C-alpha cells in the first residue's frame, strides 16, 4: 500500500506544474483566436497524436515563446472518490491526472514539433488502477484484475513530428515516437472536449482508443486543409503492467486513418488497423480493429459519436462498441455531461470464461455535473460528480448483484483556466 506521502507528492508534481505555468517568463494565458498552422489549419484542431478535433473545440492550455520556439502546456487533475456498487463493490480515493507539453519551431521550411505527455497515475491510483465495473480484465501480479481500469503510463507520449507544405494546398507529415499514438481510433477520450469534465474512461476504450499509448509509432500523413490521410506502423502490444517503465519498442502492427473536417464545428474520421498477437497487459491474438467517429463542437456544446470494433482473426464477426458522449458548458461556472455506451464483451474480457456466454451485450449510461468553485490563472478548480448505471444481461446478475449495477465518482478537478491552442504549426 502506498503511503499518503507518496500519493500526495505525485499529485503535487502535476498540480504544481500546472500552477507554476503562469509565473514563467513569457507565459501568458491566451483566449484569442487560435494560431494558424500549416495550410492555415487552426492549431485547435490538433488533438491526441495526429488526430483532428473540430476547429471550434475549446482546449484550455497555456503557451510561451522563447526565440523561435513556442511551448504549449495542457493538463488535467482529478482528485476523486470512486465508489462502485453491487456484488463487486469497490471504492477508492485517488487521482487521475496527466500533463502534456508541445514545443515547436520552424525548421527547414516546415514545422518541427515535440510532444510529451506524462501522468502520475501509477502512484496516485496505484498500479491496479481505479474501480470501474465491467471494464476489461487485465493480468496483474500473476493474477487477473477485474472491474478496474488501468492507470496511464508515466510517459504516454514522447514524439517528434515534422510537417512541410508541398505547394500551397497539400502538406505532408511525419510522426515518430518511442511512445505515442498511431493513426488508429478517434481523438482519445482524454483530449475530447466532449469528455473534458469526465474522470472515467469509456467502457469501449479497449476497442476504440486504447492504442493512444503504444511503445513504438511511425506515422506518415498527407493532408489538405480539410482532409488527412495517414498510415502508421506501431507496436500493437498494450503496455505491460509496470506503468513506470519504457516497454520495448516494436513496429509489428499497422493502421490507416482518414480524417475529414468539413467545417469549423465538425471532424470525422474512419480507421482500420491490424494488430499483431501480443502479450502485455492485454494478451490478444492477432486482430483487426476498425471504426469511425464524428465529433462536433458548437459553441460550448461538444459531442462525440464513436464506433469501434475488434475483429479477432478467425472470429467471424466483430465485437462492436458504440459511444455517444456530450458536454455542455451552461455558463462560465456550470457544466453538465453524459455518456451512453454499448459494448460487446467476451467472457474472457470479464474473466468469466466457462461461467457465462462467450459474448455478452453491455450498456452503460453516465451523467455528470461540475461546478467551478475557484479560478485564478492558470488554474481553475471545479467540484463534480458523475453517476453511472450499467446494464447487464441476466446471466451477469449473480456476478454484479443486479442487472443495473451502479457507480459513482465525486471529484475535484483542476485544469487550465484559459482557452488556448493545444498544438501549433507555422
Amino acid at each position, binding site marked *: 500500500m502506498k*503511503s499518503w506521502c507518496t500519493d500526495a507528492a505525485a499529485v503535487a508534481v502535476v498540480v504544481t506544474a500546472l500552477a507554476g505555468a503562469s509565473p514563467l517568463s513569457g507565459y501568458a494565458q491566451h483566449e484569442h483566436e487560435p494560431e494558424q498552422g500549416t495550410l492555415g489549419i487552426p492549431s485547435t484542431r490538433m488533438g491526441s497524436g495526429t488526430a483532428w478535433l473540430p476547429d471550434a473545440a475549446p482546449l484550455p492550455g497555456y503557451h510561451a515563446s522563447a526565440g523561435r520556439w513556442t511551448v504549449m502546456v495542457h493538463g488535467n487533475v482529478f482528485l476523486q472518490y470512486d465508489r462502485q456498487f453491487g456484488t463487486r463493490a469497490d471504492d477508492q480515493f485517488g487521482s487521475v491526472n496527466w500533463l502534456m507539453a508541445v514545443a515547436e519551431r520552424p525548421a527547414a521550411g516546415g514545422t518541427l514539433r515535440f510532444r510529451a505527455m506524462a501522468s502520475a497515475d501509477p502512484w*496516485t491510483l496505484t498500479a491496479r488502477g481505479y474501480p470501474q465495473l465491467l471494464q476489461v480484465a487485465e*493480468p496483474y501480479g500473476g493474477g487477473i484484475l477485474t472491474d478496474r481500469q488501468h492507470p496511464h503510463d508515466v510517459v504516454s507520449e514522447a514524439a517528434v513530428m515534422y510537417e512541410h507544405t508541398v505547394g500551397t494546398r497539400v502538406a505532408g507529415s511525419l510522426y515518430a515516437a518511442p511512445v505515442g499514438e498511431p493513426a488508429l481510433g478517434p481523438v482519445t477520450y482524454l483530449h475530447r472536449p466532449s469528455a473534458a469534465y469526465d474522470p472515467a474512461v469509456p467502457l469501449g476504450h479497449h476497442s476504440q482508443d486504447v492504442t493512444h499509448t503504444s511503445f513504438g509509432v511511425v506515422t506518415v500523413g498527407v493532408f489538405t486543409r480539410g482532409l488527412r490521410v495517414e498510415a502508421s506502423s506501431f507496436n500493437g502490444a498494450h503496455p505491460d503492467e509496470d506503468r513506470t517503465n519504457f516497454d520495448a519498442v516494436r513496429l509489428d502492427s499497422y493502421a490507416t486513418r482518414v480524417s475529414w473536417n468539413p467545417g469549423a464545428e465538425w471532424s470525422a474520421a474512419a480507421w482500420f488497423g491490424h494488430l499483431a498477437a501480443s502479450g502485455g497487459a492485454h494478451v490478444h491474438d492477432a486482430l483487426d480493429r476498425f471504426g469511425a467517429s464524428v465529433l462536433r463542437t458548437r459553441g460550448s456544446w461538444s459531442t462525440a459519436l464513436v464506433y469501434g470494433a475488434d475483429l479477432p482473426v478467425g472470429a467471424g464477426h466483430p465485437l462492436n462498441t458504440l459511444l455517444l458522449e456530450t458536454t455542455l458548458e451552461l455558463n462560465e461556472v456550470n457544466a453538465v455531461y453524459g455518456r451512453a455506451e454499448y459494448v460487446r464483451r467476451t467472457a*474472457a474480457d470479464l*474473466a468469466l470464461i466457462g461461467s457465462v456466454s462467450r459474448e455478452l451485450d453491455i450498456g452503460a449510461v453516465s451523467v455528470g455535473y461540475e461546478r467551478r468553485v475557484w479560478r485564478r490563472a492558470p488554474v481553475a478548480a471545479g467540484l463534480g460528480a458523475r453517476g453511472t448505471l450499467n446494464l447487464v444481461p441476466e446471466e451477469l446478475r449473480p456476478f454484479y448483484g443486479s442487472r443495473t449495477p451502479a457507480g459513482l465518482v465525486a471529484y475535484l478537478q483542476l485544469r487550465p483556466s484559459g482557452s488556448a491552442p493545444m498544438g501549433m504549426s507555422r
Partner: protein
Amino acid sequence: MRTTLLLGVLGAALAACGGTVTGGGANPAGAGPGEPHDVASVRLFDSTGGELTFHMPLFDSVPLRVVVSMYAANGRHLTSVTGGQDMQFTFTPAGLASSTPVTGQPLARDVLTVAPPGTGGTLDVTLHFPADTSTKTFRGFEVLVH
C-alpha cells in the same frame, strides 16, 4: 497565495485518503473456504500457476496437469467448499483428450491427448457438491493441440 492555499487543501485531502488509495473490494485477497452455492466461476491453471483459462495448449502424448480454482461471484478465491466436491472433465469432441484424477488433489486432473496437432475443441468442468447434492458445469474452455 490562493494557489498555495488550494495546493494545501489538496495535500490535506490526499493525506486523508492516502491510506486507502489502493481500494480492493472487487479483487478481494481474502481467499478462504465457502459453501457450494458460493461457487460462481472457475479458472484453470497448470502445475506452475500458469493460467490455462483462456487457452489450454496440449501436446501429443505429453500430460498436462490442470488445476481448477473456484471463485465466488465477487471474485473471492474459494480454497475449499463445505463437504468437498467431485469433479469431471468433458472434452468436445470426445476424442480431443482424456483426463485422470490426481491422488490427493481433488481439484486437479492430468490431461493427455493423442489427437493430431491443430485439433481444437473445448473443455467443460463439472463440479458436484455432496453437501447439497448440487451440480455446476462451467463450459467452453478452449483447448488446442499444438
